[in-house]
């Protein structure tokens, strides 16, 4: 092999070493762990075949976890993208004096999941939170946002929507900025108004960006952990336990250490993420306008 070829492999080596140790090997090990059960000392070293998968699929929790996960994705992805789209359309031509709003609206992106969740925990606080202040000023009874089955997932979704708004808006603004200015000019000459231009030109032209956001936000939502952990711990009684939180619950929470079952659940997560990505590419991509 030539010197250059050897050099090329040497340059890949640092990255490959990290990937091998912390990505590829753990991936293999997840599959292996998923077929092991615990011995008397809690060590996962007893082969049990597919028993863990059977247990996971027959667990009455499983259906609810999938439902909660799907509900969470639906409650977060589209609302956040639509709200961000509205913001981006309003901000696309910077108004004098309002340019600073662009940076301001991007601020939620600076919040880590812990920072955002902790702030929203205070806002949702039943006694002193602003959310109940608003609700009661409108004449309604105060709400136990995070501890009632009907509102817990919605409250987490609101937190997530807020967090992802800055990111979605920045991406959409970049997409809108890439639309050919001549298209707008032609439309204006044809007498199209602002709304018509947004609906018939801007939105069709940024479908690749919208599609990208649907995929990325869905995958993000499927991986959400921090906001659930900090706001509800998966409760009340499992009503906010998504797939990822289920894994945590099985393998780590409160001294749990059922790594075998947890790994079987992790493979379900892996399959769901890959399936969703594949479906989205298959179904949505045909409706997307590419330049």
């Amino acid at each position, binding site marked *: 092999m030539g010197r250059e070829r050897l050099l090329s492999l040497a*340059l890949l080596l640092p*990255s490959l070493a990290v990937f091998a*140790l912390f990505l590829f090997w753990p991936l293999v090990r997840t599959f292996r762990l998923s077929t092991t059960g615990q011995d008397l000392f809690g060590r996962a070293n007893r082969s049990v075949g597919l028993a863990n998968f059977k247990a996971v699929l027959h667990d009455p929790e499983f259906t609810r976890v999938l439902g909660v996960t799907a509900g969470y994705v639906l409650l977060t992805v589209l609302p956040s993208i639509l709200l961000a789209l509205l913001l981006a359309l*309003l901000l696309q031509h910077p108004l004098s004096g309002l340019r600073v709003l662009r940076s301001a609206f991007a*601020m*939620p*992106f600076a919040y880590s999941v812990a920072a955002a969740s*902790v702030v929203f925990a*205070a806002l949702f606080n039943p006694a*002193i939170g602003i959310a109940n202040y608003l609700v009661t000023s409108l004449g309604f009874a105060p709400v136990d946002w995070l501890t009632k089955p009907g509102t817990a997932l919605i409250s987490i979704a609101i937190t997530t929507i807020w967090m992802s708004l800055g990111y979605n808006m920045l991406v959409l603004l970049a997409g809108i900025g890439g639309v050919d200015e001549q298209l707008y000019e032609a439309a204006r000459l044809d007498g199209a108004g602002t709304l018509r231009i947004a609906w018939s030109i801007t939105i069709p032209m940024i479908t690749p960006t919208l599609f990208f956001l649907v995929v990325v936000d869905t995958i993000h939502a499927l991986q959400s952990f921090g906001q659930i952990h900090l706001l509800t711990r998966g409760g009340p009684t499992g009503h906010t336990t998504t797939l990822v939180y289920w894994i945590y619950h099985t393998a780590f929470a409160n001294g749990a250490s059922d790594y075998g079952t947890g790994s079987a659940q992790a493979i379900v997560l892996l399959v769901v993420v890959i399936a969703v990505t594949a479906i989205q590419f298959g179904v949505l991509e045909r409706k997307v306008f590419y330049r």
Partner: protein
Amino acid sequence: MSVVTQSRPARTAGGRASQARPRRRVSAGRVGRVLALLLLAVMVLFPVYYTVVGSVMGPGDIASSPPSLIPHVLTFDNYRGVFHAIPLGRQYFNSTLVAVTITVAQVVCAVLSAYAFVFLAMPFRRAFFALFMLTLMVPWEAIIIPNYLFMAEHQLRNNYLALMLPFLAGGFGTFLLRQSFRSFPVELRDAATLDGAGHARFLLQILLPLSRPALASVAIFVFLSAWNQFFWPLLVTDSPKMQTLQIGLSSLNDAEQANPGLILAGVTMALIPTALLVALGQRFLVRGLTAGAVR
């Protein structure tokens, strides 16, 4: 194309004469836009306002019912208090050390591999590149159990190594830098080779200085994700002195429910570096976020 070329003069000619009517319509739309934006601004920015203002409110203001939205007394007690509630200084140091190390390592690894992919002859190039892209598709949560076991088996819990090692390289930086390197002008590369520049000199003196925007994108993006991590540090640390700021916020939230001002002071401190990056590095950030989406 032809439509546009024809229509250009028409616009200039008709522009002045017919300006009076559209002007009024535009300004009505303008007012609507400003109102909509202000309404949205109140909704979106209220949590930001509450974070900062709440952190300088005394308990009489923030924990009152109904809550006051404007502080009647400005106090910095919360900032003093938060250092007693958690080892905030130490956790700030931990977060900085971990995030900076991860950023530097990922940028270096990405530069090396992207250079190899773009400028060097490589056996099995496509297979290796597919391997790098695969790393972007595996959800970290799906392999978190064996990674946790690895750290536990090697007595690395509550150790900086556990917080850093898995993230010292990543597919994202390689992907983004590869795109940037590929658009590097061939003539410049050939000129450098003719001047007798080897790989090291070409990389360090020509390519990298000209790739600063892409490098900034990678660095900002990696730093933000490292600084904001939650699940992994929660698993591998339980001693407060080894925890990162994000886990510190979580402990504050658990222990100081009755004292939101204290929690918000912690959040405000944790936000300083990321808010600066989002405000000042937005141009680079967008480039990183949209790699693959906007062409």
